């Protein structure tokens, strides 16, 4: 079986031994002549909070809709707990979706919304009543059982959409950008609630988002999609600390890029020459054997300023200062390059560096990453 990305096949993970919830086998999708998704294969494991992350148009929603059954893959199969579900229509698949717009039925009360799936599955009345009460309790909405969706706030609708999708005990819960319609504060609160709910129910969540912070915060593993391809698959730490390529490094978090020549590769380290003529030994995980050119990524928070400057020391001029409360972002001109640096405002009384000032900056070469192609 072909695997893209790095997650499940990497050494030191115990994922192999876990039960597979969803297997995406060589799946691709064409819309007319447009290739929405190139052939991808990966597995989603039981009890996992799995995130499909990518910019709009990257194919993440298409993938989710194919698992739900709203789109048919052009090639390949989708397997749910060992069963090929390709031939099943959406209503016969034991997966449920939390829709981006929530899609609550406006003519039904919240109770009726939650009971809907159970009625369709032919549950006995008593069990439906008990399950609806349980679900309303789970999302702290019992008081509102008889209300209609229009009478709720965004966050409350979100909770009901969750309860409705969880009620029929799906094998996998699909979430299509469920937080995107909420305002910032609520979004952060809902993140925690979602994560807690996932732990509490032990259910497999497949979460689609374009928000990298959300993905890092909640996921067990993230599948980064771009241009209809899997760019990287790994834990939040892996995709942030060891991005496989420029796309991932750029999409997740802030970073500085330098085009470098690869001099030699030895294990997890690579010797590279920067445009400034500096020879460095930086970390690498994704450089190909025959790669002569590469991108060096250096995160802004890995660079120290003035007295915090250690390792490779450079000198530059501050060209812009952005005070953001917890952090101050600087752009520092070193030779021809603009380097972005963030410094934690640990001490209240330390003033920001003035624009135009000449500063020392330093970084440890091993915290810089040489990226693959």
């Amino acid at each position, binding site marked *: 079986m072909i695997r893209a990305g790095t997650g499940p096949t990497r050494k030191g993970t115990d994922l192999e031994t876990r039960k597979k919830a969803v297997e995406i086998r060589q799946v691709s999708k064409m819309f007319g002549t447009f290739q929405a998704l190139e052939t991808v294969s990966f597995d989603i494991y039981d009890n996992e909070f799995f995130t499909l992350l990518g910019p709009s148009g990257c194919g993440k929603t298409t993938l989710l809709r194919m698992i*739900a*059954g*709203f789109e048919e893959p052009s090639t390949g199969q989708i397997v749910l707990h060992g069963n090929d579900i390709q031939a099943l*229509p*959406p*209503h*016969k698949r034991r*997966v*449920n*979706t939390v*829709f*981006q*717009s929530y*899609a*609550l*039925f*406006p*003519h039904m009360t919240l109770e009726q919304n939650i009971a*809907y*799936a159970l009625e*369709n*599955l032919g549950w006995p009345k008593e069990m439906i009543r008990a399950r609806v009460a349980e679900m309303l309790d789970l999302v702290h909405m019992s008081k509102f059982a008889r209300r*209609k969706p*229009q009478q709720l706030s965004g966050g409350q609708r979100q909770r009901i959409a969750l309860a*409705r*999708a969880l009620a*029929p005990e799906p094998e996998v819960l699909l979430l299509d950008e469920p937080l995107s319609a909420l305002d910032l504060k609520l979004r952060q609160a809902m993140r925690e609630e979602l994560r807690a709910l996932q732990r509490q129910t032990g259910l497999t969540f497949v979460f689609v988002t374009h928000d990298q912070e959300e993905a890092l915060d909640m996921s067990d593993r993230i599948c980064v999609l771009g241009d209809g391809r899997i760019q990287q698959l790994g834990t939040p730490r892996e995709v942030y600390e060891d991005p496989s390529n420029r796309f991932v490094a750029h999409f997740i978090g802030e970073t500085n890029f330098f085009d470098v020549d690869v001099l030699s590769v030895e294990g997890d380290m690579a010797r590279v020459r920067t445009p400034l003529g500096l020879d460095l030994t930086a970390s690498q995980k994704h450089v190909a054997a025959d790669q002569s050119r590469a991108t060096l990524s250096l995160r802004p928070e890995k660079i120290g300023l003035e007295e915090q400057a250690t390792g490779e020391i450079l000198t530059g001029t501050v060209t812009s200062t952005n005070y953001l409360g917890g952090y101050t972002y600087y752009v520092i001109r070193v030779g021809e390059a603009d380097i972005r640096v963030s410094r934690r405002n640990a001490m209240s009384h330390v003033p920001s560096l003035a624009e135009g000032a000449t500063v020392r900056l330093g970084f440890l070469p091993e915290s810089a990453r040489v990226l693959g192609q």
Partner: protein
Amino acid sequence: MRDFRFWGLLPAHVLMALTLIVPILIIVAVSFSTRGAYGGFEFTFTTDAYRQILFNEGWTGELEFNPQYLYIIGRTVLLACCTTFLCMALAFPIAYWITLQGHKARVILLFAVTLPFWVSMIVRVYAWLIILGNDGVIEKGLRLTGLVDDLPSLLFNNGAMLAGMVYSYIPLMILPVFASIEKLDPALIEASHDLHGSRWVTLRRIILPLCWPGLVAGAILVFVPCLGAVLEPVLLGGGKILMMGNLIQMQFGGARNWPFGASIAIVLMCLVMVFLLLNGLRATRKAMEEMA
């Protein structure tokens, strides 16, 4: 500002009064008058016209119950109900299909739905005579296939009348139903499938309830003119089967009994108002439930 509102709306008020309220008042007045010797009416107050709907006057002036006109009223209501129901059943799939088309096709199809209104009603109903009549399109077509040789007449029966009625009024159903289906959020249909609802369950529990307001609006638009239909019963029903519309027309025409015609017209109007009132009550009750 107030002045402008008064003077600005005055033409509308005058028009309403002259074309709507005054004529109705005249009809009411006529219905309570005595029949003139040579048609027309003489205004001497009497309720004879209304009594005539229910009772016959015997030779000796005693009243005997005569259900003949009640039958006509009942038949009219029944025909209107059947037409409305058939229109609903046919218009829903048609409207649904139109919503599934591309933007351009949709505009053209909606235009096609309204196209019959550009042609006179009489011409359109006559067209059905040609379709259904002896040596008409259907009969000739069937004979050409050689399968059927001896056909009973397709015209001048309840079926022909119903076909004509449905044909005449179905655009009034398609348009509001289309509007309500178009407003339907496709995500709701997906959500229904996602929550294990089959196509049938989705139609019955999600699509139809959410399109109900459109169906009700269409039903009123169809039902009301059906009650007063004149042309279809005469031309397609052969005039043998009297409807309220024909009855009224006869009283003002051949029978020269204006007060009686007027009284039936008032009954017809009251019937319409009762149905509108029932619908209004239903709507308010629903709105109250939403509020609670």
